């Protein structure tokens, strides 16, 4: 099972990489003008989806769809009989003790609810993990390419590949202009003409493929180091795609902004990684295995939540030990702080990637990228990677960290929702809506709603990509992002209008309370229920529930404001209206597919318990992936906070109250939007002038950009200028003068050496030779008779020498 699943997902993961390589090397030669690149990329991702779906089916076949999974045969019957999530009967204590070994008792073993209800899971969750390839293996540091496959991995794989497939098809239509030379009307050159450039169809699909590969890499990663690698890869893909229209100043600035803001978050993440590795000595989630498949080093999750402790979160021994080695007075306490630091560090990376307050500023600007990119990268998948990592890393988060996550999420969801009210750029409304929904997910995770947060991640991916693609379809038709120039488009493009209506209804969580609804209804209700549950247990923080509920009302308001302004009423710009048309089939087909999923993805499949939201197969599958030991109440050590068990929120009373409040707030927002933008009972202009200061405040996005400009950018630039001045005035001056002095010194020295030694030697030899010549010249008198005498004397001398000198 493990090898089949891991190989299927490996293939699904690597196919986009292969597509990337093919397009990289052969892109422009594929078909006319690189048209084939789209087919390569789409083929890869659709095959990936098919493989993921196969994996999902295999998983369900092996582990069932029920949240109480059947990990091993020992507890199969107990789980079937007593812990079927559909039946609310209490567990027979005797059966539990007979069939369940103590370790498997884990989640159910809690004081308040655990064992009393049918929810939660028995025994450890099923997760397959292992390594494919070892990148480096120093003694302590081992970085591998590995996998960690549980139900969440497979669901995410299926979700990402499905949405990416839809978006690939959609992009074939949307990016059609890029097939031939493009005149970019938003870029004016210095000579007053618009920029003309060759189309970049291939490049777009190349980046999309690389992005899909990176995203799937995050999802399948078996250790946090590998996650980080792919984390950065999606970051660079996001950079490429935001800056796709690189000649536009706004696009290149937005790309830089996204990249730099993400670096801030990643800095925190690296600190978290250091804290983890420095103390635990491993990056692996599940554990490091040797060749035989035995675990040789327990993974991070196992170290934090040991089986012997019933998976309760405990400061890992290794952390206490490293705190002791650091010489801490109270190693237990310091170790706990270390765990908090690690958790906050990892969360910091997630804040950057998921654009949470205070690093949310990049996401709205990222809308400069093409709309399919906004749909895929900046709403459905990449920004959700932060939430995914929080979900994946959930076992390591202490209640203190979770509280931080909840607060950050809460601030983000409210702030972004309010900004979305006043935005007029259709994509920016959706961007702020994305921020707000990501805030909801973080908030849900932070208040202990693991399944709620993950469910919202998946449902949101469907309806937000749907909304973005609808907005792209509108933009494609009217060639503007401004909603103030749209209106009445429902008559021109009905399919887009009604699929978008589905998306809007899904995002506001429309449904019949306690009965049935669109996908957003289930996830948002679950979040609010858990928030209410959390508020009941922590009176000091119950305000967060009200903020979230208010956020739900605002969500409904701005989403329908968007829909009404775009599709209802009279056209505000007749010329644009006249040219508008429904998008080609390749673009609206994915809308229909996604609309289908936006409606049904979280619907309960069980007819008998149709009104029970936890009966949804999606919830059940997520329940299978719930990290061990997180299904129980647990309290913080340092902060007075109690994370309530999630199944407590399924309590009839809480769930009913939360459902009603969610419905009420959504209806209130919806009606307000109707009043303002459909029935025209209130005039938006009047309202705006009535709340002018607030409007200005929201219109300027809470002045975050200005604030950051004043706090960070200007001081940084000022410091930079000061340092540059110092550099030029002092350091450069010193270096320059040193160089000048050195140069004159070496010149003199060099000359001296040259004259004295090099030239001197040569001249001396020459002079000696000359002197020798002069001396040898003397016998050359030119007198013949003298020569004869020399000859005779010389001969005589040689004769005498030979006679007396050389003979012995």
């Amino acid at each position: 099972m493990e090898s089949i699943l891991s190989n299927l997902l490996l293939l699904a993961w690597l196919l986009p990489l292969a597509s990337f390589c093919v397009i990289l090397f052969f892109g422009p030669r594929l078909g006319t003008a690189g048209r084939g690149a789209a087919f390569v990329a789409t083929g890869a991702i659709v095959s990936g989806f098919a493989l993921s779906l196969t994996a999902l089916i295999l998983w369900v076949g092996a582990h069932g769809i029920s949240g109480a999974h059947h990990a091993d045969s020992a507890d199969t019957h107990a789980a079937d009989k007593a812990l079927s999530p559909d039946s609310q009967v209490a567990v027979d204590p005797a059966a539990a003790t007979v069939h369940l070994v103590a370790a498997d008792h884990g989640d159910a073993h809690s004081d308040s609810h655990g064992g009393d209800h049918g929810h939660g899971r028995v025994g450890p969750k099923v997760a397959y993990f292992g390594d494919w390839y070892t990148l480096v293996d120093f003694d302590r540091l081992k970085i591998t390419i590995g996998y960690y496959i549980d139900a969440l991995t497979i669901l995410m794989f299926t979700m990402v590949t499905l949405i990416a497939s839809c978006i690939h098809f959609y992009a074939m239509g949307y990016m059609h202009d890029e097939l031939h030379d493009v005149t970019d009307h938003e870029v004016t050159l210095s000579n007053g003409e618009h920029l003309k450039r060759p189309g970049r169809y291939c490049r777009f699909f190349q980046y999309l493929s690389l992005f899909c590969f990176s995203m799937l890499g995050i999802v399948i990663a078996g250790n946090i180091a590998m996650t980080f690698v792919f984390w950065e890869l999606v970051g660079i893909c996001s950079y490429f795609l935001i800056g796709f229209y690189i000649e536009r100043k706004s696009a290149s600035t937005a790309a830089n902004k996204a990249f730099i803001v993400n670096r801030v978050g990643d800095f925190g993440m690296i600190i978290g990684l250091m804290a983890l590795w420095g103390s635990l000595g491993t990056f692996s989630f599940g554990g490091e295995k040797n060749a035989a498949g035995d675990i040789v080093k327990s993974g991070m999750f196992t170290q934090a939540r040991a089986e012997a402790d019933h998976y309760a979160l405990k400061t890992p021994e290794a952390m206490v030990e490293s705190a002791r080695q650091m010489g801490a007075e109270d190693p237990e306490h310091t170790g706990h702080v270390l765990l908090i630091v690690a958790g906050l560090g990892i969360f910091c990376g997630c804040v950057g990637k998921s654009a949470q307050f205070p690093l949310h500023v990049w996401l709205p600007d990222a809308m400069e990228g093409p709309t399919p990119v906004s749909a895929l990268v900046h709403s459905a998948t990449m920004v959700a990677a932060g939430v995914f990592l929080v979900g994946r890393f959930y076992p390591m988060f202490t209640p203190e960290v979770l509280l931080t996550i909840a607060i950050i999420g809460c601030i983000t969801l409210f702030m972004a929702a309010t900004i979305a009210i006043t935005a007029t750029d259709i994509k920016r409304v959706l961007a702020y809506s994305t921020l707000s929904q990501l805030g909801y997910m973080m908030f849900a995770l932070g208040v202990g709603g693991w399944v709620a947060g993950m469910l919202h991640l998946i449902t949101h991916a469907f309806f937000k990509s749907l909304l973005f693609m609808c907005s792209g379809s509108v933009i494609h038709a009217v060639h503007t992002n401004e909603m103030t120039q749209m209106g009445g488009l429902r008559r021109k493009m009905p399919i887009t209008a009604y699929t978008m209506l589905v998306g809007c209804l899904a995002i506001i969580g429309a449904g019949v309370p306690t009965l049935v609804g669109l996908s957003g209804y289930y996830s948002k209700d679950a979040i609010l229920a858990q928030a209410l549950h959390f508020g009941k247990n922590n009176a000091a923080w119950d305000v967060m529930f009200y903020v979230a509920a208010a956020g739900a009302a605002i969500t409904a308001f701005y989403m329908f404001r968007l829909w009404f302004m775009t599709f209802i009423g009279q056209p505000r710009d007749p010329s644009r209206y006249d040219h508008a048309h429904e998008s080609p089939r390749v673009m609206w087909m994915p809308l229909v597919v996604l609309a289908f999923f936006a409606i049904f993805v979280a619907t309960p499949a069980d007819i008998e318990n149709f009104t029970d939201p936890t009966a949804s197969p999606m919830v059940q599958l997520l329940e299978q992936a719930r990290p061990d030991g997180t299904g129980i109440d647990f309290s913080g050590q340092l902060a007075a906070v109690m994370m309530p068990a999630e199944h407590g929120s399924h309590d009839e009373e809480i769930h009913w109250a939360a459902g009603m409040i969610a419905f009420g707030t959504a209806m209130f927002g919806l009606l307000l939007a109707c009043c303002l933008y459909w029935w025209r009972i209130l005039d938006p202009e009047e309202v705006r002038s009535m709340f002018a200061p607030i409007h200005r405040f929201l219109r300027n996005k809470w002045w975050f950009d200005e604030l950051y400009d004043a706090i960070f950018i200007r001081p940084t630039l000022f410091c930079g200028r000061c340092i540059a001045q110092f550099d030029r005035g002092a350091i450069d001056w010193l270096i320059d003068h040193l160089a000048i002095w050195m140069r004159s010194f070496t010149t003199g020295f060099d000359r001296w050496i040259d004259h004295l030694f090099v030239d001197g030697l040569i001249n001396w030899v020459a002079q000696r030779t000359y002197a020798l010549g002069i001396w040898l010249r003397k016998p050359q008198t030119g007198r013949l008779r003298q020569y004869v005498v020399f000859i005779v004397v010389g001969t005589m001398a040689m004769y005498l020498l030979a006679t007396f000198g050389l003979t012995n």
Partner: protein
Amino acid sequence: MFDLLSQPVGLTHYLIVGAVMFVAGAVCMATKRNALGVLMGIELVLNGANLNFVAFGSNFLERNPAYQLGLDGQIISLFVIVLAAAEAAVALAIVLNFYNNHSTVDVDRADELKG
């Protein structure tokens, strides 16, 4: 030394005559200022040497074969004669030219090749 006068003419006598000719030639070369005189001295030196070759090459004068040059001595002396003739021809031509240019055959005046 004076024993030689009482002995039959042998190799030594020839060598003595050769040596006298050689020395006379060398002295002639060293002392004559007239170029023709110098040439004559050269002839004397060459012939003195020739005499030695011939004497060494003779079977009658030197019985010991180890010291005999044999026919080689004769041939070398013939070569020397030929060489001397050639040399005299060249030298006389030089002298004639020298005389044409300087109106003299005084070798002391011919010092243009001095270093």
